[in-house]
């Protein structure tokens, strides 16, 4: 749509600016401020420059947490995006079942994140949980509180359970937006099911898939409450991801300067990786 030039539009944006100033700009400035100081108590503080940043970048346990986080985020993306597309293709297109499946799909998205952890805690326990009991009955030794692999796989399964629906809903709305004429043209050409998917459906899904990949990447990179409730980050630190590491540092140990420096690096990593995803997807769209 052609938009007219009007500087007074700033007045309409002003309320947003005020709210966001309070909820984002001031806190972010505070973080920058903390990150260059060593704060002993409210009245004693020293300027330390980039020392916290150098400290953080050399920290081995943090490298390990970052590695775990990257592996986790890429694993869930690799499972959720193809699975989401596949399920969206299976959805009914008309009739009463559309509303029923949509409501069932949206249900996990509206569960508070700590309750997601609780649900899986109850579901996967080897003594009282349906999943845990079933797997152990099949002769596989499974215990998410004891084994690192078990814990990690449970967290991945939980995230797939929790968030694949978002990808499905996005893809479904993208598929609905494809005009019937495209399918008719494909049918006249005698296109196979795969050819229809590859040349008609997939190209029209890139828009919603961009949103899906970005949202899923950002949110999986910030995951906190679910593993915190389910495993508490353990056993050992096998399911301690970046947010939990940061929360422990900031609120648990009150290590303000280090936490602030870490926060900024964390934020920059998300921004940079989101930008990379965005560029790759939009490039492939053009090419």
């Amino acid at each position, binding site marked *: *749509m*052609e*938009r007219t030039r*009007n500087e007074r*539009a*700033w007045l*309409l*944006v002003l*309320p*947003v600016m005020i*709210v*966001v100033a*309070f*909820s*984002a700009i001031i*806190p972010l400035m*505070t*973080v920058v401020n903390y990150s260059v100081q060593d704060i002993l108590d409210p009245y004693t503080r020293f300027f330390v420059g980039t020392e916290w940043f150098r400290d953080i970048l050399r920290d081995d346990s943090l490298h390990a947490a970052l590695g775990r986080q990257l592996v986790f985020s890429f694993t869930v993306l690799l499972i959720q995006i193809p699975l989401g597309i596949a399920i969206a*293709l*299976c959805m009914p297109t008309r009739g009463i079942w559309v*509303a029923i*499946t949509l*409501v*069932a799909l*949206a*249900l*996990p998205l*509206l*569960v*508070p*994140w700590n*309750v997601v952890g*609780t649900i899986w805690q*109850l*579901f996967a326990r080897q*003594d*009282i*949980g*349906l999943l845990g*009991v079933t797997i152990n009955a099949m002769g596989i030794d499974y215990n998410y509180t004891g084994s690192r692999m078990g814990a990690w796989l449970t967290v991945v399964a939980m995230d797939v*359970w929790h968030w694949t629906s978002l990808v499905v809903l*996005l893809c479904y*709305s993208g598929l609905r937006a494809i005009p019937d004429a495209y399918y008719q043209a494909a049918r006249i050409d005698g296109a196979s*099911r795969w050819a229809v998917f590859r040349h008609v459906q997939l190209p029209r899904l890139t*828009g919603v898939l*961009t*949103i899906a990949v970005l949202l899923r990447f*950002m949110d999986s990179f910030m995951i*906190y409450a679910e593993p915190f409730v389910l495993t508490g980050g353990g056993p050992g630190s096998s399911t301690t991801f*970046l*947010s939990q590491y*940061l*929360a422990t540092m*900031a*609120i648990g140990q009150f290590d*303000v300067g280090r936490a602030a420096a870490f*926060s900024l690096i*964390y*934020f920059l990593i*998300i921004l940079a990786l989101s930008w990379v995803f965005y560029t790759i997807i939009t490039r492939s769209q053009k090419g």
Partner: protein
Amino acid sequence: MVFKARYIALIVYLLFLLIPIYWLLNMSFQHNSEILRSFSLWPENFTLNNYARIFTERGWAAGYVNSLIYVFMNTTISLLVALPAAYAFSRFRFTGDKHLFFWLLTNRMAPPAVFLLPFFNLYQSVGLFDTHIAVALAHCLFSVPLAVWILEGFMSGVPKEIDETAYIDGYSFPRFFITIFIPLIRGGIGVAVFFCLMFSWVELLLARTLTSVDARPISVVMTRSISATGVDWGLLAAAGVLTLIPGALVIYFVRNHLARGFALGRV
């Protein structure tokens, strides 16, 4: 044949989604002793005792009320500021509009954990710590950008001629906006409300950090079922079931707009 395979895949996936929720329901109708003593696929001694405890013991109900209060505050604030801004982004060009729009979105990318400490200090210094409004404002961090993003997409779908005709007919801007424009995009508003409610309701980290006693959300109260003698699984499950209800109600009301709303306009 292809048709059948499609629906079987869908049904298997839906079962995968619903079985953990069924398990939660199953546990919520059992006594803790029964849960721990034997493994059963359905409650053998059906009881509503867990729910009764939640509704009668102090603290539980207050937790739900606190959560609902800040969720509604957050949704109201987000909509009030996002509506005019989204209108500006969809109708006008002004200095820095593109940068501003992208910058708003980057707020959605900020991990809440980053803002934990500054929020804690900021709200404590202005005396808002442990109030509902503090949590509501903190949640604006992600709900406002999302609301602007969704509403802008819907508003761009309304032809500009409608605005112009209204002005020619002598409508003032506020009157046009409230009596003509808002009814036109009510589907979009419904979707924006859905997302604001949803993300504010499910968030835990900020809500937990910014409250202690008076505004304590349900997610924090739930940790009370874990005591020195172990976890009361039945009670925990019942509390979990109750947190599902508001979400289920919201989905039911917006189910027809849901699919459309997920095509969030531009990125």
